[in-house]
């Protein structure tokens, strides 16, 4: 699906960064873990072709990503940003419909099929009741779900998500990650920046660790989610336990 060749992202003021020779296959869901400022968002933007790397290149379906036209690229990969911009009061449905933009010629208007795709996506994100509301009236979590609905309408093969559980309550965190999991099991791939180790352990098949010193390592979930590595990553003591077969991690903070 996607491959990076000697990729070094462009992070100003960070001279020492590991080169990434990384492969993302269909059916894999990658979690990117790292402390604040380690470059998770920059990595996602670079993978999406929205930010030029310092060196190296990215192959999307075998071809350099720089060779794609923006519209073709948007059919193959989609990105949910950490924050959404909404300076103008479009409706929720009209916003979800924007996911069809990569598939329409400039003179075409959205067909009934496009509209029902958008409505389906809204239903999956439990936003149907808000379809005619202005996006400016939505709560943080509703905005986040709308951004995911746009991604579902866009229906790309590679889903890039920058903290997809941002602003979401527990129920919607599970709903969103289960939905991503479901998409991946249909043969798509997902790469998501996460802060919650337990969600990463539950929903990702592979993990990439971005250390603050510029080091990076990646691999299967079980080999990556090891206590010493994670403690070094976050510069924080952790404790771990197993509940009903699931590995859980907690930051250690002594009771005084």
């Amino acid at each position, binding site marked *: 699906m996607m491959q990076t060749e000697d990729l070094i992202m462009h992070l100003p003021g960070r001279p020492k960064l590991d080169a990434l020779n990384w492969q993302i296959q269909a059916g894999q869901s990658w979690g990117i873990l790292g402390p604040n400022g380690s470059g998770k968002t920059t990595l996602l933007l670079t993978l999406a072709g929205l930010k030029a790397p310092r060196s190296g290149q990215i192959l999307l379906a075998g071809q350099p990503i720089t060779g794609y036209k923006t519209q073709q690229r*948007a*059919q193959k990969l989609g990105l949910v940003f950490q924050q959404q911009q909404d300076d103008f009061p479009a409706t929720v449905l*009209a916003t979800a419909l924007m996911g069809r*933009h990569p598939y329409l010629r400039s003179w075409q208007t959205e067909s009934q099929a496009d509209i029902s795709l958008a409505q389906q996506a809204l239903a999956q994100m439990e936003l149907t009741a808000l379809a005619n509301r202005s996006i400016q009236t939505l709560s943080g979590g509703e905005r986040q779900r709308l951004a995911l609905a746009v991604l579902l309408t866009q229906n790309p093969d590679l889903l890039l998500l920058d903290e997809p559980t941002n602003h979401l309550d527990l129920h919607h965190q599970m709903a969103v990650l289960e939905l991503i999991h479901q998409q991946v099991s249909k043969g798509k791939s997902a790469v998501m920046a996460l802060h919650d180790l337990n969600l990463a352990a539950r929903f990702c098949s592979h993990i990439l660790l971005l250390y603050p010193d510029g080091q990076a390592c990646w691999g299967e979930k079980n080999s990556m989610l090891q206590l010493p590595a994670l403690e070094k990553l976050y510069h924080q003591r952790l404790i771990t336990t197993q509940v009903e077969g699931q590995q859980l991690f907690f930051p250690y903070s002594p009771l005084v």
Partner: protein
Amino acid sequence: MPFKLLPRLLVLFCLSLLILVLGLLLGSVNLPLEAIVSVLSGQGAPLHKMLILELRLPRVLAAFATGGLLAVAGALMQVLLRNPLADPYILGLSGGAAVAALLTMLAGLGVFWVSSAAFTGALLSTFLVFGLAYGSGQSSATRLLLTGVVVASGWGALISFILATSQAQQLPGMLYWLMGDLSHAPNPLIPWVVLLVVLCLLIPLGRTLNVLARGALQAAALGVSVQKVELLIFGLAALLTAIAVTLAGSIGFVGLIVPHLMRMLFGYDQRILLPASALAGGSLLVLADTLARIIIAPQQLPVGVITAMLGVPVFLLLLYRSNR
């Protein structure tokens, strides 16, 4: 999606026609409706012919074009800068035009030179702002906005300087130009052609503009070639504004308020918003100019004063009602 609003747009179109006819009939001498019918069918009194065909028709058409150009340019600037407070002049266009126009007035040159200077000044200011904002390679809506606002205040200082140092008998002409005045408007044919061509170009681009309003990165992720589109709408907005300024000086308010009014009535989709803004902006200016001609007839007020007086209460009323 946008089609269900077409009947509403049609109503606006008919209303615009009605206002155009009203602009032909009213003035220091009011004419009956039959006068238009007979003049257009080639008959009618010579006085009516002169009044309608030579005086009022060009003036009314110039007013409509100016309003339409400003409203569309305003709507484009608001998308370009992702800022609902943007208007066509926000990037210093009118300031550049004003300085050039006032300088030609100071030199005592005629109407033709004032218009040409205004157009040149507007374009010059556009290139200046654009060069400064995009020249370093890195650009953002905020950077563009800041550059424009700073350049505009530079022009403002120059305008004050020119006004302060010019002679008393030149001041009224300069002030009328600054407030926006249609009495010296040149032939409106080119502005009409430009307005129609640009609208035909923009309506297919409307969906892209909708996506662009969600932010440059989000738009790029959805397949918009952001830089190309931004360059295009910046160029078009500048062209529209420069032509409007050439026609009638700097008329404030229309470019800011009309797109907002239309968003309240038509929603947010640019494919409807842009043609609606053109119609409403044109109508508003014809209405304002007609009032400017009759309130203290036979003297004329600068039309910019009336646009604000008409627009402010209407806008506040709509804003108040939409919040309930």
